[in-house]
C-alpha cells in the first residue's frame, strides 16, 4: 500500500522534473527537445516570475499574521468555559473553512464590486469611497478574503492546542496571583509556542496555494498586482502552453514548500516526544 502511495506521488514528480528540462509546449506535444537547465536560467531573468513570488510572499505574510492574531483571540474566548453559547459559536464560526474557495472568491467579488457591491455602496452612503480592487488595494483585499475563509482553521488548531495544555501551570499561576493579561502573557503563550508555530507553518503552506480568489476576481490584475505564483504557473502552462517553463517554476516552489514542511515535521515530532 505504501507502494501505491508513492507511485501516485513520485512518478508525477519525476515526470515533472523531466518536463522542466525540456522545451515543451502543449500546442505541439511530441516535439519536445531536451534543453537542460535553460528553463531554470530563464526564470532568473523573468521579471513576472519574481513579481509573482513577491506578491505571494506579501500575501502569505499579511494573511497568515492576521489569521493567527484573530484566531488566537477567538480561541481564548471559545476556550473559556464561561462563554455564552460556546458550542454554538464554535461550530458556526468554523463553517467558512468547509466551503469551496471559488464560491468565497465570487461572493466577495460580488459584495465588494464598486458598481453593485453592498459594501462599497454602503460605505459611499457615509461618505467613504474605496475601490477594493484598485492596483494598490487588490492584493490586500484578496488577503482579507483569505482571512475570512481561513481564520476558522487557525481557530480550530489553536483551540485544540489550548485544550491539550496541562492544567497544573495555570493552577500554580492562580496561586501566585496571575490574572487576565498576565496569565496569557506568562503562562498561556509560552506553553502554546510550539502549537502556534505548527499552526503558522500549516497555514503558510496552504496560503502558498492561493489561486481561486485570484481566478475568481482579478486574474492577476490590475497589471500584475495580484499575480500569485500558483496563478502564474497556471497561466504559463495552460494559457501560454509553455509546460516546460511551468514545470521549472513549480520545482522552485517545491524547494520553498519542502523547507516549510521540514520545519513543521520537526515541530510536530518534538510535540509527540514530549508526551
Amino acid at each position, binding site marked *: 500500500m505504501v507502494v501505491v502511495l508513492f507511485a501516485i506521488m513520485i512518478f508525477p514528480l519525476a515526470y515533472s522534473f523531466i518536463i522542466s528540462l525540456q522545451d515543451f509546449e502543449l500546442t505541439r506535444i511530441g516535439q519536445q527537445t531536451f534543453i537542460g537547465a535553460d528553463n531554470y536560467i530563464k526564470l532568473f531573468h523573468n521579471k513576472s516570475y519574481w513579481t509573482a513570488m513577491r506578491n505571494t510572499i506579501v500575501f502569505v505574510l499579511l494573511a497568515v499574521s492576521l489569521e493567527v492574531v484573530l484566531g488566537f483571540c477567538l480561541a481564548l474566548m471559545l476556550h473559556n468555559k464561561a462563554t455564552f453559547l460556546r458550542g454554538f*459559536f464554535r461550530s458556526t464560526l468554523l463553517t467558512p473553512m468547509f466551503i469551496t474557495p471559488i*464560491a468565497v472568491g465570487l461572493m466577495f467579488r*460580488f459584495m465588494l464590486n464598486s458598481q453593485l457591491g453592498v459594501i462599497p455602496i454602503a460605505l459611499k452612503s457615509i461618505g467613504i469611497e474605496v475601490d477594493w480592487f484598485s492596483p494598490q488595494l487588490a492584493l490586500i483585499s484578496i488577503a482579507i478574503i483569505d482571512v475570512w475563509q481561513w481564520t476558522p482553521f487557525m481557530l*480550530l488548531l489553536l483551540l485544540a492546542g489550548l485544550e491539550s495544555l496541562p492544567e497544573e501551570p495555570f493552577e500554580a499561576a492562580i496561586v501566585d496571583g496571575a490574572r487576565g493579561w498576565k496569565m496569557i502573557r506568562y503562562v498561556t503563550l509560552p506553553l502554546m509556542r510550539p502549537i502556534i508555530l505548527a499552526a503558522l507553518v500549516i497555514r503558510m503552506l496552504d496560503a502558498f496555494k492561493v489561486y481561486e480568489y485570484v481566478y475568481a476576481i482579478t486574474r492577476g490584475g490590475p497589471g500584475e498586482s495580484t499575480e500569485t505564483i500558483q496563478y502564474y504557473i497556471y497561466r504559463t502552462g495552460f494559457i501560454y502552453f509553455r509546460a516546460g517553463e511551468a514545470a521549472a517554476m513549480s520545482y522552485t516552489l517545491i524547494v520553498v514548500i519542502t523547507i516549510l514542511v521540514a520545519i513543521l515535521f520537526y515541530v*510536530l515530532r518534538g*510535540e509527540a516526544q514530549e508526551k
Partner: protein
Amino acid sequence: MSHRLRKRITSVFTSLVLIVSLFIVFFPYFWTLLASFKDAAAINHPLDFSFTPTLVNWQAVISAGIPRQALNSLIVGLVTVGISLAVGSLAAYAFSRFNVGGSAARFSTLLAQMLPPAVLIVPLFLMAYYTKIIGSVWAAVISHLTFILPLVTWFLIGFFDDVPRELEEAAKVDGCTNWQALFKIVLPAVRPGLGAAGLFALVLSWNDMFYALLLTSGTQRTLPVGIAGYWTFRGVEMGQMSAAIILAIVPMIFLSFFVQRFLLRGLGGGAIKG
C-alpha cells in the same frame, strides 16, 4: 475594580466579539442567498430591500447544467473517498503498527499532501492526455487522489495509534491471522476515524476547482468549475451565480458539523491529541 465586575465585563466583551464575528461569517451567506431571489434590476440596487422575491434564478440554475455538475462532483468525491479509505487505512495501519519506512515515509506523506497543485498539474495533464482520459471525471479522480490519499493516510495514523495493541494480540491468541485481526478488531475500532476522514475527504474533493478546471470539460465539469463560469469576461449572471453558490456550499456546511469534532485528532497525524 472588583473581581466580579471584571468577570462581568470580560463576559460581555466576549459575547460582543463573538456576535460580531458571527455576523461577519454569516453576512456573505445571507447576502448570496438574498441575491439568489432577486432579479437583475434588484441586484443593481443593493440597499433597496423592497424588491419582490423571484424564483427565476433557481429555475434557470436547475434547468441548466448545475444538477449534472453536482452529480459529477459527487461521483468524483465518492470514488476518490472510496479508494482513499481502502488504500489509506491499510497504509496508516502499516505506519502505526510496523512503522514502515520510518519517519522518512511519514515525512513524505505530509509533504505530499502539502504540495501545491501547480507542481503536479503539468505532469497530470500530460498523463491524462496520453491515457486519453483527459476531460473526463476520471482525470479529476486521479488528480484528487494525489492530495486526498496522503491526507486520509495521515489523518488515520492517529486513530490507529489509539487502538491498544493488546486487543490484536488477544485476537491472535484466539487464532486470528494478521488480516483477520485487522478486519475484525482494529477496523471496527477506528470506525469514527474512517467516517470523519471520509467526510472530510469528500468536502475537499467537492471543493477543488484547480484540477477540475484543467482536467474536466464539457458535460464532465464539476460544480466549482460550473460556478466559476457564471462570472467571466463574457457576461455576468449574478442571480444565477448566487443560486449555484448556495447549492454548492450548503451541503458542505451541513457536513462540517459532523466532521469538526474529529478533525483535530486526524490533522495532527498522531502528534496532537484533541
